[in-house]
């Protein structure tokens, strides 16, 4: 493990050759990928700060353990860099390159400092290599975590955006569902639908599942729950848009939707209109200024 002399040796090496190491490191980073996502000045200042923090950490703390308070600043800095890389859309390899490309200039300095003392070179290289690897792992850790945060946020946004409730007519709502239905999404769908029923004083809600790729027992269960909740509020539900293959799958699975279902949204809308005492009639002359009742269904 790292002896006291090794510690100070490393920080000495970094201290004396800081400018050289920085220049070499920057050259390597720029050579590995001329990137437009981050400016040269920004990269340079990140590298400079990082080197300074590394020198401070190696002179103060125990090199073998990066979890000690001495490394706190270095870890925070690395975490920030990694996080910003993740949100800027850098790949994991590109993010890891930032820290791993520091090895080459540092090893070169170690070799230059120790001259022909093979044992010292091996010792220092090993210690440094371990240190950089650990910092690299930390980088990947933070990177991964920030990516997951991004994914979770997007997931939330999609869930919110993909459940619109549209008003088709007075008292008739439609809920076009798109994408897979899981329990979290069903909850959002249900809440949106029920609130809209109150807001619009709707009597009938049409749940259109044309955009739902698969319907298994769980999804059917969720659908039935939504229908039951809407019924408790005093609104009838019609399910529409069950695709032929899905209908077959459901029958094979033994799933039964005990609700009114129609093949497409237009049929469901017709049922809804007739239940609310309305009907669609064709105007006699199909002119461009047809009556409202005749034109509406055509635009559906």
């Amino acid at each position: 493990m790292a002896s006291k002399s090794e510690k100070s040796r490393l920080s000495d090496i970094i201290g004396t050759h800081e400018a050289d190491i920085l220049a070499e490191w920057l050259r390597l980073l720029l050579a590995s990928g001329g990137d437009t996502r981050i400016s040269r000045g920004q990269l340079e200042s990140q590298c400079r700060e990082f080197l300074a923090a590394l020198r401070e950490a190696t002179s103060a703390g125990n090199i073998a353990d990066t979890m000690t308070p001495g490394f706190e600043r270095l870890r925070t800095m690395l975490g920030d860099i990694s996080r910003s890389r993740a949100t800027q859309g850098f790949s994991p390899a590109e993010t890891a390159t930032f820290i791993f490309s520091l090895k080459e200039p540092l090893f070169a300095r170690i070799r230059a400092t120790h001259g022909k003392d093979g044992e010292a070179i091996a010792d220092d290289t090993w210690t440094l290599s371990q240190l950089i690897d650990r910092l690299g792992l930390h980088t990947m850790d933070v990177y991964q975590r920030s990516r997951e945060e991004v994914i979770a946020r997007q997931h939330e946004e999609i869930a919110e955006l993909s459940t619109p409730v549209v008003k088709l007519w007075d008292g008739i709502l439609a809920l076009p569902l798109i994408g897979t239905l899981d329990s979290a999404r069903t909850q959002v769908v249900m809440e949106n639908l029920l609130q809209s029923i109150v807001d619009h004083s709707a009597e009938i809600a049409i749940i259109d599942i044309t955009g739902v790729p698969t319907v298994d027992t769980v999804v059917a269960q969720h659908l039935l729950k939504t229908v039951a909740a809407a019924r408790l509020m005093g609104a009838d539900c019609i399910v529409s848009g069950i695709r032929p293959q899905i209908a077959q799958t459901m029958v094979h699975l033994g799933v039964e939707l005990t609700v009114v279902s129609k093949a497409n949204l237009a049929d469901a809308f017709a049922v809804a209109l007739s239940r609310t005492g309305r009907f669609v009639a064709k105007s006699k002359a199909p002119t461009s200024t047809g009556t409202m009742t005749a034109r509406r269904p055509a635009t559906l």
Partner: protein
Amino acid sequence: MDRIPILKIGDALLVTIQVDMHDRLATALEEDLTSKIVAVGARGVLIDISALEIVDSFMGRTLANIASVSRMLDAETVVVGMRPAVAITLVELGLELPGVKTALNAERGMALIQHRTADESEQAEADDDA
């Protein structure tokens, strides 16, 4: 003990629940309602729960019971004004109240009851004519 008032409007009974229901109050309501249906010969019962924020499994079952009992006594129960959150809770509890009619608000619920009584009186007239 507090009691929930039951109002008679035409052929229907109107119950508006405006306080938080506890179990004893719910049981008392069930009993009062049953005797009142028989006393006035009501054809419909309208229960407005728009002010209720919490409906637990007991209350859900009481509503279902009231509906069953009044159906037996030839009166139709309509529960109106259920809040979205309450509806979701009941469904999650597995209480879908299959025998209970529902409506969005008191006005529509009343229309539902009147529709039924009107249908029946027409039917009776048709029978008489025949």
